[in-house]
């Protein structure tokens, strides 16, 4: 095998196996980052928890008035917590969508880059001449 054949074989392995593998790795890293940046697991686990653990105790003994006021405050606290958390989860879903979409475009662009470049050359030739 001559030097030209050798280098072409290296290029094929590099372009179609090694770099695509690296791109997948990068997309994976970015998705993991989005997951941890928005603390999605934690948000889901504590979705209905009171906001910043802020709640009223029911106290000793039973008093309907106290019970109702504590109950309603705690419900509001939990509802507020849920609202903020859902908002953030929604934002994180957008980020995941962008990373996945961007990653897919990058991946495809890389795989088809030889064809794209050839297409550019042909198009350039047509436009110039």
């Amino acid at each position, binding site marked *: 095998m001559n030097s030209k054949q050798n*280098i072409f074989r290296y290029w094929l392995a590099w372009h179609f196996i090694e770099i695509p593998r690296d791109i997948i790795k990068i997309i994976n890293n970015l998705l993991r980052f989005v997951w941890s940046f*928005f*603390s999605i697991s934690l948000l889901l686990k*504590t979705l209905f928890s009171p906001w910043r653990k802020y709640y009223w105790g029911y106290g000793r003994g039973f008093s309907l008035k106290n019970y109702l006021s504590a109950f309603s405050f705690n419900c509001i606290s939990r509802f507020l917590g849920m609202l*903020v958390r859902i908002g953030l989860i929604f934002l994180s879903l957008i980020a995941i969508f962008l990373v996945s979409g961007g990653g897919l475009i990058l991946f495809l662009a890389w795989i088809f880059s030889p064809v794209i470049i050839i297409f550019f050359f042909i198009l350039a030739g047509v*436009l110039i001449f």
Partner: protein
Amino acid sequence: MTNKFYFDPQSSSTFWAIKSKNCTVLNLGNIFAKIFLGLFLLSLLWLSLNLFPRYNFSWSLDYSSGVGFALLFFAIFLISKSGHFFLETKLKRLGPSVSYLSGASVQRINLAKVVDYRAGQLIVKLFNKEKQKHVSLISSLSFGYSLLSNNSLISFVFSRAGLDWKEVKNLLKEERQKEEKEEKDSDLSLESILIAAFQRASKKNHQKIFLEDLLSSWICYDPFLNKILLERGLRAKDMDSIIEWFEFISQEIEASEGFWKRDNLKKIGSIATSWAAGYTLMLDRYSTNWTRLARRKGFYREILGHQSELEGVENILVNSQKNNVLLVGQPGSGRKNILLALAGRSFWGTTLEALRGKRILELNLNHLIAQTSSGEEVELALDQCFQEVITAGNVILVINDLERFVGETTIGTVDISGILSKYLESPKFQVVAITSPRGLRQKMEKKTAFINLFQKIEITPPSAHQTLRILELHVPRLEAQYRKFILYPTLKKVVEHSARYFQEKPFPQKAIDLLNSVLVYSSRYGKGKIVSPQYVDQVVERKTEIPVSQLSNIEKDTLLNLEGLIHQKIINQDQAVKKIALALRRTRAEIASAREKPMGTFLFLGPTGVGKTETAKTLADIYFGSRKKLIRLDMSEFQNPSDVAHLIGSNDFPGILTTKVREDPFSLILLDEIEKAHPKILNLFLTVLDEGYLSDRWGRKVSFLDTIIIATSNAGAEIIRKNITQNEELDLIKEKLLNHLFENNIFRPEFLNRFDAIVVFKTLTQENLLNIAQLLLEKLKENLNQKKGIELIISEALKKKIVELSYDPVFGAREMKRIVQDKVESAIAQAFLAGKIKRGEIIEIDTDSFAIKKVE
């Protein structure tokens, strides 16, 4: 060994890539990429300007052709960039790794296969230049000459060593020409260097044999270069250490490149982790947020010297049974660095799952106590803070100097052990308390139940080598702050000197402090930007008064004339004085640098009043510059085994000996009447005499390397006295004396053998006594002359009278000083006060009545 290796570039893909013409074209890819990117951008500009009909930049080119050119330039840019990328990420990394070949030890190894692209380029260049195709025919000098060129590795290594690589290159050239003229064959070839480089790469888990490995091996083995280094006070080991420093920085830079890497993405942190935790309003008022501090300091890839301790802390904190840590270490040993690393790991999520997102808060007890007016209020505030730790659920509480707040308390402190114990048992309450070994033993060991709520982790200070690496981490910040360039020998000297002369603090703090002082000193007194090792000597000398630098002329004179100087104050005892002078000359000339013992250890044997103690005092005066440098211990006060505590310290008081030597390591230690000490006390000195250190009550090593130890004893004085009267030889007397000491179990042979010299002091003759009287009276005369302007005449009769009054066969000349004081000094003082003598007068003493007579 050498048979295992060979070098065949023909079968190496790296060398194939270097020689391949395709690679040469690809190498130009980056330049092409830049040019065509520029052209593409220019064509885009042209296209956008031509969108506006006002401007006419068409230069007879239609718009569609312009788009065509833009596309063409962009396509060429993409090809060039991708070609260069292919070269960098694939072709330059061809071939097996070092570890792969190391594993195949049964086969012969072709080193050419594991040479890195840059190193390969250098070898190919050398082959072409030397017109040789075999590595065994290329001399080490030729290789070194080619290796030294303007690149980041060579510039860094040589500039940090304080060397000019161009100058070294010229010296190599001259030596090579000399060898060629003399037709001398070089002992070392490139083949040997490659084998050494392979072994280094394999040891350091390198993928390939890099330029760093080749440089290190060449420096290590080339005899001519080693000669150059030695002449400049450097060793191959130092250069290797600088290469390691360069490798560390390169790794850090490489790791920080590429935002998409998992570790780099972690640096960004996360939001919303605190949303699940409760508020800590009270705690925030009285605490320091270590997590915020760690974020501000940035992301540290590793913690030097305390990796295992950090992992220990993490393991304890996630333990469900006992999750409180007690860090025991000396202040300055890196205790807080461990917590800073924990805070960083916790914030960036590189720690154990259960610790991620935790906040590390240090409770500022001093502030809390100062803000409250009564003990009850303190308790209430603490209770609220601890309650908040539990409700927040994401707090690890740090309590610094715990020993100050446990047990008996002083003004400004309270005992928090009671209230803290209540919470320590809760699995939701995680505490890292910090204390020192001394604090633990003095205050807390008595509180067993309280201590049992913690798991202890002992912090050992980092080694000298690790400290050097820590200093290297500080260098960029310090250089930017002081606008100086710190040489590697400076860092090395900082570590060596701080280890030896600053025993109060542990590593790394003492080395960091010294480096800071050196930089301040060089900014104030230094010339130029370079911080050389001499500044370290000067700073240490200023701080400790120890002459650590090269011998000055004055000191050289002192050492050469030491016998004469001592004899100005000590009469007779030639042998003793000579032995001391010899020992000191040996030490200061650094002939005995490998000696890990005190500078000199002597046992003075002889009757009372013959000058044993006076010799020690005189030496402290002459050599150490002041009698204040004398640490005198009356060994008759150490007659019980329990007295060891007085020397090395106990829970209730510091050690007399260890504390003084730690504070002032450049001292003379006088152990008076050593025969009276208990044998167990003498055993304590065996390590000091033999290895030059002693461990104190808290296990801290106290170095005695810069001390002179003199022990005195008058055991067997009778034998000396008897034999001296019989005119026996001094060596014979010494032999008899030693036999007497062993037979009567006064000293054990292993104790006496550890002294550098056992010196017998002779009893004083009448003539000696007259000379001593002369010395004492001379001193008085000088004093009188200087302070009162009165001239005292010292007559033979006066000297004889003083000797007659003071001499006692048992006490020697000990009484003489008292007699001079009582008789002569008192008489002069009385006469002066009564106005009988005035300034400018000459006086004489009447030897019968000790009355003052004026001389006309």
